């Protein structure tokens, strides 16, 4: 369960970029690994990634802290060839990095984060990556009978994998996110050199977070159950707050768009993405920050009419300006509605960088003053707002309507 997209597995990015990655299993390890990663990075003169999975990012625990260190003196880079990515430098840097990669890989055997824990039952060896190690320990509080390879550092030295190969006759991979290691060890063949289990053979679900119960099932251990959920328990999808300005904006947009069944409303990332769900059912897309405007422009250029974009004020400040400039430059017939609640509502009310300067930002990008207006999304202005939107849809160019009313949560807080 995540707030927007599927959880991505950052081990692919570290692999792709050829940088080491540390993967903590606990809050304490996360604390220690971040310190270690900075040291390791300075030693290697390479970035070092630290992987946080959803469960670790959304949890708290007691952590033993170490004493803080003085800040490093500022040392501006003195070798432009490392920082100016001209092809001549980039080619050389890449050749150097790939030449160092075997020794970086071998070195992981000398660092403490990958650890073979012996076990007497060699029928199964368990490769436990990051947080999955906790679930294994939860299930075997007095020690796991199987040999375990606890993974917290990538790339993994071949010597470690060879040793573990000798310790067990089959492997079970416990990985949060993607079957990253499992797929590498299994390879592209239908039969692996030796039995490999995990997310790819159905021992664990292919998608979704791990849990102590899923790991228990993968190990054929009993799973306890509480009481059944009574059938009357209905799902509770999130909704916009009572009195939310976005709800009033969606009301007048729907009034207008009822007359244009072929039109589309491209939206963006924020509380207002809930406009896709009943009772609003107003918007048609949400992809990434700023895509409301660029997708509306692309659709309008391809002949879709009317093409509307709905974007929040802080999303607009973050990633909407470039797309709007592009639409102005090409006079694309789109109507952009900026939902200005004067804050970053979804993440808890941080300052929005466009507050107090939104009109001048939009005008500065070249939107004509006649087609830039501020509306107040309140029920008593519903008809007036709809009328203005209808007029702007008729305009053969870029219009921007700013629907401005403060977030109800922020008002409550003050």
């Amino acid at each position, binding site marked *: 369960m995540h707030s927007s997209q599927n959880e991505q597995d950052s081990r692919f990015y570290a692999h792709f970029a050829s940088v080491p990655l540390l993967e903590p299993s606990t809050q304490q390890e996360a604390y220690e690994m971040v310190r270690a990663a900075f040291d390791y990075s300075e030693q290697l003169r390479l970035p070092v990634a630290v992987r946080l999975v959803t469960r670790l990012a959304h949890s708290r625990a007691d952590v033993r802290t170490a004493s803080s260190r003085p800040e490093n003196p500022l040392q501006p880079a003195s070798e432009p060839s490392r920082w100016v990515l001209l092809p001549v430098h980039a080619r050389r840097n890449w050749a150097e990095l790939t030449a160092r990669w075997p020794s970086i890989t071998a070195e992981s055997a000398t660092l403490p984060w990958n650890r073979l824990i012996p076990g007497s039952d060699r029928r199964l060896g368990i490769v436990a990556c990051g947080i999955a190690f906790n679930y294994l320990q939860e299930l075997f509080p007095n020690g796991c009978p199987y040999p375990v390879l606890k993974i917290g550092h990538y790339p993994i030295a071949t010597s470690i994998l060879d040793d573990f190969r000798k310790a067990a006759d089959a492997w079970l991979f416990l990985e949060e996110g993607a079957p990253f290691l499992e797929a590498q060890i299994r390879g592209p063949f239908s039969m692996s050199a030796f039995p490999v289990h995990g997310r790819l053979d159905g021992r664990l679900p292919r998608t979704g977070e791990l*849990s102590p119960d899923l790991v228990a099932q993968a190990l054929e251990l009993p799973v306890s159950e509480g009481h059944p959920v009574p059938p009357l328990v209905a799902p509770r999808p999130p909704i916009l707050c009572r009195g939310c300005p976005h709800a009033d904006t969606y009301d007048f947009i729907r009034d207008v768009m009822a007359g244009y069944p072929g039109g589309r409303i491209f939206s963006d990332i924020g*509380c207002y993405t809930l406009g896709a769900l009943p009772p609003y059912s107003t918007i048609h897309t949400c992809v990434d920050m700023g895509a409301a405007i660029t997708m509306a422009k692309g659709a309008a250029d391809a002949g879709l009419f009317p093409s509307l974009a709905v974007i929040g004020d802080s999303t607009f400040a973050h990633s909407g300006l470039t797309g709007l400039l592009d639409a102005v430059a090409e006079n694309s017939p789109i109507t952009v509605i900026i939902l200005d609640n004067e804050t970053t509502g979804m993440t808890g009310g941080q300052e929005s960088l466009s507050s107090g300067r939104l009109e001048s930002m939009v005008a500065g990008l070249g939107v004509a003053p006649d087609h830039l207006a501020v509306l107040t999304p309140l029920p008593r202005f519903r008809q007036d707002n709809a009328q203005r939107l209808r007029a702007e849809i008729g305009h053969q160019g870029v219009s921007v309507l700013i629907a401005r009313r403060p977030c109800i949560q922020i008002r409550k807080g003050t």
Partner: protein
Amino acid sequence: MRFDMIIAGVGGQGILTISALIGRAALAKGWHLKQSEVHGMAQRGGAVQSHLRLSDRPIHSDLVPRGRARLILATEPLEALRYLPWLDPREGWLVANEEPVRTMDAYPDPSALYAAIRSLPRHFLFNADALARRLQAPRAANIAMLGAASPYLPFEPETLEAALAAQFARKGNAVVEANQAVFRAARQAALQAVPSPSAPP
């Protein structure tokens, strides 16, 4: 000592504050704790659950395994029932608020929810919002829930009251005292309704 619980409710009901208060109390005891919340969009009225684990020994999993929660503390009656598979079938208690939060059309009949809660062997159902309103602290319904659940938690009430004082210190004495009054009244209501809950280990 080992105590697993789930706090359930609707976004905006102060569930993370309850978690933080129990976390403070655990740290005051020198215990280990793990707290993990599962939510979609935090402020948007969806279902929110917090897994909270306390122990005098290191805790491994951030999530409570099914059938292992000694307590489900629910700030809303529909949410009280959503996580029952996590409730320990032998000794788990459900402490639930009666006041429904109707965020959807298909909200069940509350009397059916109350009946389902009362069908559990160990439960305490009461109206935390009404108690908080009666004590002129309408925003402290979450603290009322903490008070109502306190007989089932592995803490002396003084430890939880000290956590309240620390949590609300920067809002001033009046806020601390109002919250402590709500806490005590709710605890009293729970003790009167269910005279002798099994003492935690």
